[in-house]
Structure formats: structure tokens, C-alpha cells
């Protein structure tokens, strides 16, 4: 599938926002926060779709890594989003720090992130254990959202 086709699909994913798995550690987002988050989520869903289309069909860990790599490139172009951020015990730490959790994409200030986006490929899903680990290590109780390429 060409990138332009993927982008077209990406532009049709507004409905995905409604069905994405969202976990909020505490409190409710304001209407303004929700609107901004949905815009970012919309763009990141498009990035996931485009990444998947660029890599092509496949399965397994290698395929998943390729999709994550493409997603990382595209997601880093989204305003207000940082990719590949590791947290441990409420602090930002370098990749590979023992016991840390690595978020695929983070929205907002890294010290007070509003949303964490976890890209899942193939049959992988955001599990309660994943959510617990984010809640344990990431400060400011952000919303944890699963992004799945369509």
C-alpha cells in the first residue's frame, strides 16, 4: 500500500478514537484536555496506520519492531509528542534503565505528561499489568491509551 493510501486511511480514523482503549489513573479530563488529546490521538492513530502500511503485512517480534520504528518516526513529527521516553519511580531515565517502563509516545511535558500512548501490533493488547507499570512509574497520572494499527 502506498503512503498516500495509508494517509487517506489515517484520515478516516476518527471513529477509532472512540474505540481505543483508554485508562485514566485518576480524575477526569476537562473538555479542552479531551479535545486536544483526541486530536493527538487521531494523529497518532494515523501514524500507526501509516507505519503498518509502510512495513506491510507480517507477524512476530521483528515485524512488530519494524512497525514501532516507523511509528516512532511519524509520531515524533506530531506537535507536543515525544517518542521513546523511559520512566522509573516518577523520574525520566535513559533507555534500558533497570526496572523502567518505556512509553512509545508521550504527550505533554515529560514531567507532567497528560497522555501515554502504547503501540500494540499483531495480537498484543494493553494489559492491566502494562497499565499498572505505567501508573507505578510515570508521574502525574496520565491517561494510558492503546494504539493499534488498522
Amino acid at each position, binding site marked *: 500500500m502506498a503512503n498516500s493510501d495509508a494517509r487517506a486511511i489515517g484520515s478516516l480514523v476518527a471513529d477509532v478514537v472512540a474505540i481505543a482503549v483508554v485508562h485514566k489513573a485518576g480524575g477526569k479530563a476537562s473538555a479542552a484536555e479531551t479535545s486536544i488529546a483526541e486530536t493527538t490521538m487521531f494523529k497518532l492513530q494515523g501514524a500507526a496506520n501509516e507505519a503498518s502500511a509502510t512495513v506491510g503485512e507480517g507477524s512476530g517480534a521483528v515485524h512488530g*519492531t519494524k512497525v514501532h520504528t516507523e511509528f516512532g518516526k511519524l509520531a515524533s513529527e506530531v506537535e507536543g509528542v515525544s517518542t521513546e521516553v523511559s520512566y522509573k519511580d516518577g523520574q*525520566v531515565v535513559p533507555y534500558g534503565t533497570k526496572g523502567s517502563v518505556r512509553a512509545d509516545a508521550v504527550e505533554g511535558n*515529560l514531567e507532567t505528561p497528560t497522555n501515554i500512548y502504547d503501540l500494540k501490533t499483531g495480537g498484543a493488547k494493553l494489559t492491566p499489568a502494562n497499565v499498572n507499570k505505567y501508573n507505578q512509574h510515570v508521574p502525574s497520572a496520565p491517561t494510558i491509551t492503546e494504539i493499534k494499527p488498522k
Partner: protein
Amino acid sequence: MKNIAVERVVKRYLQAFIINDDFIFSNNLLYKSPLEDILAGFCFEKSGLNKDGVYVWCFVQPLYLKSEHIILSYGKRLKGTRGELWLLKNNTNLEETIEELIPLMKDAIDVFLNNVDTPSKFYNYYQDKLVNLRMAEAVTYSAIYSKNKDSKLILENYINILENENIEVDWVKNLLDVAKGLKLIIGNDEAIQNLFQKNIIETKQTIGL
């Protein structure tokens, strides 16, 4: 990106920081020397997804906060025209990339590092940026270590904040326990300095500095 590849780039292109600014390069860190109580410099953080790329952080780490790892919370990623990921290997435009990176690093030294590289400067810079518990922790410790006249009050406020948090989270409970321990010795300068010097030595050893 392997450490050796980062080291090659630093040696070839970033020597000026080592020669002119007294920085040291070790373990993907380019930091100010002599290293005393605050680690101040740049971390070339590997990407997990792009073997040729790194994220370049300008950061400080108060070493009197006991830690078993590098902390990047007190700093920021340098962002170029192509985003936060810097391709320092297999990049046909490497020289252009470096030409973009160096001024950002110099600017980060002037605007940020030089303003937070001592405990009292750290306190002054971050005292009104208490966005989360870790920031409150670092600011409180910096006030105490730099013998701020309001240390006792700052510590009490910090403990109050912690007591309203969820102490079922292990690290939050640990922050509270340590803070309560500090409260017991807050008037004893020698005990405070001994504790913080011990933290500095142990943190340096643990993170290999």
C-alpha cells in the same frame, strides 16, 4: 547506537566542549568537570528503535539525591529541525546534523546548565516549578544542602505534600520515610552534610562516575 559509535562522534566533532569547557566524556555522558555535587551535561540516550540514532539530553542531576541510575528529569531533549532523534551513524549528512546540534548544545549550556549547576542555583531555578513529587524532592534537598535559611519550612511543606499522596506506591513511601528521617537531623549541619556527602559518593559509584 553503540557507545563506541557515540564516542567516535564526540571525539571527532565535539572536542571543543572537552577542551574549551572542561567537559569529560564517559558512558555516553558529556559532563562538566570537576564533578562535585551536581552532574551537569549531556546524555546521548540510545534509541530502542533506530540503531543509528540518539536523543541528546541537556540535564543536571543533583548527586546528593541518592540514586542508582542516571536521572533525566531535570533537563530536556534537544530538538532539531528533524525532531528529537539525532542520527549520528549511517547519516550521509552527518556534518550538517552536527552543525545543527552544536549551537543547540552551546545555547543549552548558557541558558540552562550554567543556571542550575550548583545546589543554590538549582533551588532558585526550580523552586517555582514544583510540577511533581520528584521536583519537590530535588528542590527540598537542594535547599537543605545549600543551607537555605528556610530549609526547615521547605522540608515541612514537602512532607505535607507527601503525606497527601498515595503512599501505597513504593517509591512515594520511600520519599516520605527519607524526608521524615531528614526532619530528625535538620538542625544538625554536620549530620546533614555527612548524609549528603555519603549520597554523593554512593551515587557517583553506582552510576559509574
